[in-house]
């Protein structure tokens, strides 16, 4: 008997079948992973279960009894709770207020906070979810916010807990903690649906795993008896190499020269990038490694022109670019895959074609005396879609907002690489993407290097840093503390540099 069974679910969106006849069976007391690439239909399936979407066909059963879920309130009624990828918390409320929101205990219209507090404290002790009930959400870490989300589900006495990509926003330590919390939860009799595309996490906690690919059901496997390679093949539909094939670097001239660059923070008057100097050569991938928040973003902002540098110089092929407008930098051959693709990378309300010409719309190819040349725009867009395999419901006309994260990122990569840049600045280009897309984007970055572009890659993922870079610079508290060769450095050593425990004098 299954505590939740989704039988033959089909959900259709305009132009795309998001879920095509999918069956998912959750046993009581198991952690059931739902594995698939971006756009495979995992989130859609969970939204159907949580009542956010209504399926076109198929039924949901709880303990063999058919149930109908029309909205999140119904889901709560049947004991289904969900931790969304982007938390649904009120930032200027306290932890306690967020937990009870919607299910407040009141007496004649007055909140009974004491009772609620006792229960929250009791729950957090029982499951080892340490939180401060009186802290404001805006003041606590992302890891703690996630614990608040979990407590919300427990407070509502949910027995089926859905975790939508819960580890995407966590540090390695927080991930360890979450994994042990999840094990604790099933020990207490809860059942968990765990949406992810990270195979090692599935190996660590899940009992069974259902794999989806492009909206279709691929299979359900027992995690203990299935190896990672098999699962990844099921997910992607072909064999995936987890290491990157990379020809040896053939270094050219210096493309970018950064000297004594200092960037002051907008918030306070301290420097967040402090007197940084380095070079990037043609045909070289230089990676900036470091723990998030050590000045990497600000360094990139100064190079790309999003924020001004406070002092120092940046030159691109001998041209000083530190004080020129973004448009001029782009004309000088600077391409930028931004850290936040929704904020900087795309105009989500424009269609795909309009986004693909975002930095070229003003060139004679796409406009004639101020009028857009639509046939050129759409044929260019169709060409890039074909060349970079960008998948979407309606091709060039697809509203970008409706595309999956991986394909949005592919669109940005396509647009930037089509510039044949002298220097490509790529910031966390694979964040939140699945194995197939990561492999693809790595290949494209290496292609750019082969074609003679210099690449400055900022990454928080050590695997990525070690795999594709030719040289690693480690940033700590706004300074470059190491300049090392990935072939000669170990993970442990990088960790020491990143945490500030070790530093070299780096000279250009």
């Amino acid at each position, binding site marked *: 008997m299954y505590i939740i069974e989704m039988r033959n679910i089909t959900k*259709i*969106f*305009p132009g795309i079948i998001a879920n095509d006849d999918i069956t998912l069976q959750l046993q009581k007391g198991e952690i059931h992973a739902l594995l698939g690439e971006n756009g495979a239909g995992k989130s859609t399936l969970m939204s159907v279960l949580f009542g956010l979407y*209504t399926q*076109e066909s198929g039924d949901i059963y709880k303990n063999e009894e058919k149930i109908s879920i029309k909205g999140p309130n119904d889901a709560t009624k049947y004991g289904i709770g969900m931790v969304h990828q982007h938390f649904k918390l009120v930032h200027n409320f306290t932890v306690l207020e967020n937990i009870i929101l919607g299910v407040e205990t009141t007496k004649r219209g007055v909140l009974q906070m004491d009772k609620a507090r006792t229960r929250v404290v009791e729950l957090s002790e029982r499951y080892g979810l340490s939180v401060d009930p009186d802290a404001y959400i805006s003041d606590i870490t992302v890891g703690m916010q996630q614990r608040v989300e979990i407590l919300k589900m427990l407070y509502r006495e949910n027995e089926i807990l859905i975790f939508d990509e819960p580890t995407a926003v966590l540090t390695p330590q927080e991930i360890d903690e979450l994994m042990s919390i999840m094990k604790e939860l099933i020990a207490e009799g809860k059942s968990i649906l765990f949406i992810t595309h990270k195979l090692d996490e599935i190996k660590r906690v899940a009992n069974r795993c259902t794999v989806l690919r492009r909206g279709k059901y691929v299979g359900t496997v027992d995690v203990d008896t299935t190896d990672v390679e098999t699962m990844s093949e099921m997910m992607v539909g072909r064999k995936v190499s987890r290491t990157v094939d990379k020809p040896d670097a053939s270094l050219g001239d210096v493309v970018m020269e950064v000297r004594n660059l200092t960037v002051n923070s907008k918030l306070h008057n301290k420097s967040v990038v402090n007197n940084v100097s380095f070079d990037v050569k043609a045909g070289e991938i230089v990676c900036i490694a470091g723990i998030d928040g050590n000045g990497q973003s600000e360094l990139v902002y100064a190079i*790309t022109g*999003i924020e001004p540098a406070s002092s120092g110089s940046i030159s691109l092929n001998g041209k000083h670019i530190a004080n020129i*407008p*973004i*448009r*001029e*930098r*782009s004309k000088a051959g600077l391409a*930028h895959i*931004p850290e936040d693709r929704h*904020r*900087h*990378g*795309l*105009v*989500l*309300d*424009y269609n795909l074609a*309009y986004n693909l010409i*975002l*930095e070229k*719309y*003003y060139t004679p190819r*796409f*406009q004639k005396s*101020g*009028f*857009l040349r639509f046939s050129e725009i759409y044929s260019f867009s169709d060409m890039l879609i074909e060349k970079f395999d960008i998948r979407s419901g*309606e*091709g*060039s*006309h*697809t509203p970008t907002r409706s595309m999956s994260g991986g394909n949005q990122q592919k669109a940005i990569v396509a647009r930037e690489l089509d510039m044949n840049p002298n220097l490509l600045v790529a910031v966390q280009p694979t964040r939140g993407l699945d194995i197939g897309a990561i492999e693809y984007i790595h290949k494209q970055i290496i292609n750019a290097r082969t074609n003679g572009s210099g690449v400055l890659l900022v990454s928080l993922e050590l695997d990525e840093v070690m795999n594709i870079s030719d040289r690693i610079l480690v940033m700590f508290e706004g300074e470059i503390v190491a300049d090392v060769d990935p072939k000669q450095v170990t993970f442990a050593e990088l960790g020491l540099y990143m945490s500030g425990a070790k530093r070299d004098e780096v000279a250009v």
Partner: protein
Amino acid sequence: MRTFIQRRQAGILSLLSTLIVIIAGLTIGFIVLLISDSEQAWTAFWTILSFGLRTMRNVGDVLLSATPIILTGLSVTFAFKTGLFNIGAAGQFAFGGFVAIYIGVVGADYIIMPAWISWTGLEAIPPIAPPLRIILSIVGAALAGALWGAIPGLLKAYRNVHEVITSIMTNYIAMYLISWIIQNTIIDIAPFTTQSLPADSNLPTMGLEYIFREPLGAGFRTSNVNIGILIAVAIAILVYIILNRTTFGYELKACGYNKDAAKYAGINQNKNIVRSMMICGAIAGIGGALNFMNGTGLSMTASPALAAEGFIGISVAFLGLTNPIGVIFSGVFVSYLFLGGARIQPFGFSLELVEIVISVIIYFCAFVLLVKTNIGKLIFRRKD
């Protein structure tokens, strides 16, 4: 590829949702009439619904009074596409109107030069020929509106002050400033308004009076409708072309949808904010000019007053789904209601009640986007 069917569906959806809110608004308006006077309600309601179509002259009058609100509606629409909310159309409209009247009145006569430039030998400027005077009035109005729109634009772009706040304030400044200037220049003391425009300072009718007229005795009573409505339609089409066909429109909309991405793409957002606000101001300013140059002898009050057309423009813009072509229709519709509404006073309804009924209908129309989202889900869910 996006199919023809999907595009047609989107069009049907817009039309359908607009119809639904209009019907809902009319129903509630009718209920208000019923509460007020149940015996006369039906007659009054029928008058509101049908008056604008009863004669060709009425049709002409609908178009005449639609002209200024189409333009203020376009002004709000244009700003909205750039991510700006132009509450300042009232002030821009008033400035445009004043400058148009000023040029129309002063330019019709000899302008005596002040003594301090007598050394140039120039004593007076002769009257400006009527066609040129009319063109100058419109161009002057556009410039005045553009300058007035530039103020909130500049403050937003370079000092990051929200344009809603500054454009509300510029409305009040315009209101008092214009009152003061009128009192010191082209005042007509007895009605306390500007002097009336000479007949040849008004917009030509180009024969429209032969279409929009009704029989009266042996002759005809004609509407004052003039080429203003054609200018308004032309500007709506121009706005549509700018927004959808040009690189300028591409930049403006990119700034409106996502200013960070626009900056990333190297688009100078500050420059575009100022440009956009100036264009909005110019459109509203032309609205002011066409409003007063309509040949009805309408003059501008010298008492401080906010131009209602500026605020009606906001409703017109949203009822037209912030689509420039939609704004033409919503402007005509709102004007139609006002004209019919004004005719129910004889049935014993007070002017205030008429305004309430009209406002209720327009208020409902503001829900058009809400309805569009929801019926979209209802109707097309299964079909897709």
